[in-house]
């Protein structure tokens, strides 16, 4: 079996793991506190606007996660070390959950505020395309007969898909300027809102890292178990 050469992702239960998880927990509590207690209610949109503080970080993570998928895919095709594919795969798992939540929280926020569930603006469309790309990434792996081939195919998707997202964004943005709508997020954020948002983003980023590390080390363990099973059954 191909060796999974260690590239240094911390193992479960180790120092870094608890550190990141702990920090993420603390920041998340802080974010929740800020969002629900500290930040004033936005005047035009009302209470529902608070979803914004989750929607934006989730979107950020969703796209960041795919960037990691891209990096992992390139590294895997280059070095053929399955540890890179592991990272990409785990990142995709977290990423797709985030984007799904983005696609759910977006309409929940949009409907009371703008009167419409959905708008095909650049960000939302890019999110949908990203979501579909994640689905394809996961699906291609499970529908390929052989594991390392599946990893390779998924990597190809990770690379092509990642390059596609900014192009989609650009195309839809241009499209939107031809067919303008009134659904535009306007204005600067007052400092209280900005700080709440930043804390939330930090909290979610740390959560992403924690989940990624856990997922990667879990896969490593699975790999190790398989390897040992074979040694025994040989």
């Amino acid at each position: 079996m191909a060796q999974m050469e260690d590239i240094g992702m911390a193992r479960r239960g180790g120092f870094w793991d608890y550190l990141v998880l702990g920090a993420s927990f603390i920041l998340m509590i802080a974010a929740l506190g800020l969002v629900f207690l500290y930040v004033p209610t936005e005047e035009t949109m009302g209470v529902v606007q608070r979803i914004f503080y989750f929607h934006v970080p989730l979107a950020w993570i969703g796209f960041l996660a795919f960037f990691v998928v891209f990096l992992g895919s390139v590294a895997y095709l280059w070095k053929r070390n399955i540890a890179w594919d592991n990272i990409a795969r785990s990142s995709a798992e977290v990423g797709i959950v985030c984007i799904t939540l983005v696609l759910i929280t977006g309409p929940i926020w949009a409907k009371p505020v703008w009167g419409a569930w959905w708008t095909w603006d650049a960000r939302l469309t890019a999110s949908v395309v990203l979501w579909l790309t994640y689905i394809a990434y996961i699906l291609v792996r499970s529908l390929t007969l052989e594991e390392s081939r599946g990893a390779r195919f998924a990597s190809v998707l990770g690379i092509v898909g990642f390059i596609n997202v900014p192009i989609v964004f650009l195309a839809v943005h241009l499209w939107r300027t031809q067919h303008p709508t009134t659904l535009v997020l306007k204005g600067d954020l007052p400092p209280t809102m900005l700080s709440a948002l930043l804390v939330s983003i930090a909290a979610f980023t740390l959560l992403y890292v924690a989940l990624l590390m856990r997922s990667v080390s879990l896969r490593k363990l699975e790999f190790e178990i398989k390897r040992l099973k074979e040694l025994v059954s040989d």
Partner: protein
Amino acid sequence: MEQENPSSWAIRCEGLKKSFGEQHALRGVDLTVARGECLAVFGPNGAGKTTLIKVLCTMSRPSGGGAWIDGLDIRKAPNEIRRKLGVVSHATFLYGNLTPAENLRFYGKMYDVPNLENRIEEVLDQVHLRSRIHDRVSTLSRGMQQRVAIARSIIHNPSIMLMDEPETGLDPHATIMMRDILDSINSGDRTVVVTTHDLGRGLELGDRMAILHKGRVVFEAPKAEIDAGRIHELYDEHTRAVVR
């Protein structure tokens, strides 16, 4: 007595490994085939015969270990190696909607074969296929298709032939024809590796035999050292043992 000079071997494998995820097809194959020699490889289903051929012909990347064809590393010089190889397998690699002549013309171009039209006639003669060469391959019988496949494999005059059970799936008449063709290909200074289920036939064809079992070579000897009458017992003996 092993010769250390690598250029005397046409094919050399050292600890060759290939895994498909959890399935280990080759677990460390050590093999050498001298130039002009014919090696017959036996082994039960799942022993790794097909995988060995696939790795040697650069179709499959090895998971571990090394292999050299005419001194060239299969990981580093795949295209040069491909030029020297002729491969015959269960699949014919032929385009069903094209005629044998068109198939040969296409592959001839891909292999940079000089004087292509003459060469096409030559190989078709060699496989005794003069009639029906302008009919679509999908309309030909399995035996005829297999013959065209062989013609395809030798069109670029390769010095090394890799054949994976070339006689499987043929009716008795086609089998006889195939034997003649294989014998003619085998002559000369071509190096041949042929995998087969047919122990007797393998013994006829080969200068040396090897038995592959669970991804390893468990037995290897020149024909002279093998008692033809005992070949079946020998085979059973080596393929029953559990490989560690």
